[in-house]
């Protein structure tokens, strides 16, 4: 059964600290993602999304549980074998782009190929094709500092694809991009899954990405579950009264056992200064469901 899934996690758990300071960042997560599927993992800040992605990509060892990539269990591999898996089987895309500053766009794209024996020579043509396809052929010799945010992320996408991995893991790929550029990058990822049959797993806050995903998973307090059918769960910002989508809100605070959600950092700070003022004024004692 495992062979049908590009990535599979079974009972994946990551615990930080011990005793009173124990934090279960990821708690017994089981997950299967099929070939060609684009899956979006959403959840509030600190819910364990990045920790989960790190373990799925072999960047972090779980406390317990198993991860299979293309049928190979990576959780039991030695430290010396994991880099090979990351180089050959997984393509990474990060919010901060993470291009190597001294290398040109084309050299960045070729970098993962240089980690595979005989890879660079074979990858030259493919790098040119990818850069062409992503509209970067005129920028191939540019250093990252001379590229726009969108261009950097497209270089990162090309880099993720250079070794033909079947699994693409993306952490907030649109997080540092404006909405138009972010949409372009998402369309590229969508095409990668649809046209090339690659599995794309995206961790994101951005609700605009939901329409492109085949499946949306919700991670909260380290636990994974299928997204509820309602597209949004609206609650009220206690400071300004604005409607906020609880599913995607990243700004929140817990007061007297109830979680409050905010539209902006400013509202959050004002609430934290005098929380009782806003709850009393609105006749609200913390009605938002946690």
């Amino acid at each position, binding site marked *: 059964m495992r062979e049908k899934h590009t990535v599979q996690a079974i009972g994946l758990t990551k615990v930080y600290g011990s005793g009173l300071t124990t934090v279960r960042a990821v708690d017994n997560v089981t997950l299967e993602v099929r070939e060609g599927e684009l899956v979006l993992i959403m959840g509030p800040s600190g819910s364990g999304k990045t920790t989960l992605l790190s373990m799925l*990509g072999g*960047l972090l060892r779980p406390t317990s549980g198993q991860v299979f990539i293309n049928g190979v269990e990576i959780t039991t591999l030695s430290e010396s074998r994991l880099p090979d898996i*990351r180089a050959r089987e997984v393509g990474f895309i*990060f*919010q901060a782009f993470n291009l190597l500053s001294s*290398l040109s766009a084309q050299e960045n794209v070729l970098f993962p190929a*240089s*980690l595979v024996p005989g890879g660079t020579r074979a990858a030259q043509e493919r790098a040119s094709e990818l850069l062409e396809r992503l509209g970067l052929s005129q920028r191939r010799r540019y250093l990252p500092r001379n590229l726009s945010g969108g261009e950097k992320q497209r270089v990162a996408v090309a880099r993720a694809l250079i070794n033909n991995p079947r699994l693409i893991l993306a*952490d907030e790929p649109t997080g540092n991009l404006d909405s138009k550029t972010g949409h372009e990058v998402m369309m590229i990822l969508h095409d990668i899954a649809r046209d090339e049959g690659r599995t794309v797993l995206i961790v994101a806050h951005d609700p605009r990405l939901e329409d492109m995903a085949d499946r949306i998973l919700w991670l909260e307090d380290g636990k994974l579950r299928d997204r509820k059918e309602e597209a949004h769960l609206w609650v009220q910002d206690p400071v300004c009264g604005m409607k906020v989508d609880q599913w995607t809100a990243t700004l929140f605070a817990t007061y007297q056992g109830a979680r409050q959600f905010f539209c902006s950092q400013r509202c959050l700070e004002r609430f934290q200064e005098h929380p009782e003022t806003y709850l009393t004024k609105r006749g609200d004692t913390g009605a938002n469901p946690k």
Partner: protein
Amino acid sequence: MVRLGMKNLFQERGRLLISIGGVAAALVLVLLLEGVFVGVSQDLVTYPERAGADVWVMQEGVSNMHMASSVLPSSLRGGVEAVPGVRDATPILYVSSPVEAGERRWFSYIVGVRPDAAAGGPWAMARGTAIPGPGEAVIPDVLARQGGVDLGNTVTVLGRQFRVVGLSMDTFSMVNSITFLAYDELEQLLEAPGAASYFLVRAEAEAAPDALATRIQQAVPGVHVMTREAFVASDLDMSRQMGVDLIQIMTWIGSVVGALVVGLTMYTATVRRAREYGIAKALGAKNRHLLAVVALQALVVVLLGLGTAVAVAYLARALIPALAPEIALDYPVGSLLRVSVVAVGIAALAALLPAYRIARVEPGVVFKE
């Protein structure tokens, strides 16, 4: 990975130049010290090399000139000259003593030469007479310049004043000089009538020095006979033995300084690029890939430093005769090779510190903003 290493290295040119400069400074220190030492050693044997003798005859048990003393009866001259193949044998008297000129003193070989000396006198003159008479001295031109004396002025040797009648060339270095006095006068000063220190033997054209030395050794009892080459080599060996420890200490100091400069510079660069090394690891680079990058960077820095050091050292050798004629510099192939080996050692040492840091970089840094 090679490309990444080189691009990272050359992207930060300021740091690169500091590293190269640090290594070059440390290696120049080692090279110059050894160069001066070798040059000085070479200067010490200038007299036996250039005095004109093919074969040296000295007291039994003596095998060099520097810091040595040899006493022979001058009457042996006839016996030496009677050996087939000997063209002539010139006795010299020799003692080490300071020479005073003005307010300054210099260590000097005091050589007594006869008026008819076929060998043993100055080999190149700047001005004046080559062979001194009674009450006269021939001193090095550099010594005269430094002491503020000229022809006709006096210098003090062995407590007696001598009038300068000649200024010789190539007879002065920072550790030694050669002063020539009249043989008979030095004989009196040393209270050694009928004595000679060495016989300087010139060979007939067809006589091989090796064979001639053997024949003299067999024919004249109570002497030690050496060819010029053997005598010079013996003196060089003696002077080098005296400086080997110092050279070794300085080589170690230079190596440690060089390794620290490169190591710390590279460590700083590694820390600054820790995130990028983390990215490389996340993308599939192994520790050994990144360690190779650091080792390569260290090697390139050290080799560029070595090249700079050698260039500076040779530039110094070209300029120093004009700026400080008393200093002699020489870099034998052996010392260049040794410094090269030291440089590679510096690179290996310098790579250790950043290697330790790289091994601890977590690929998870890719998720941090």
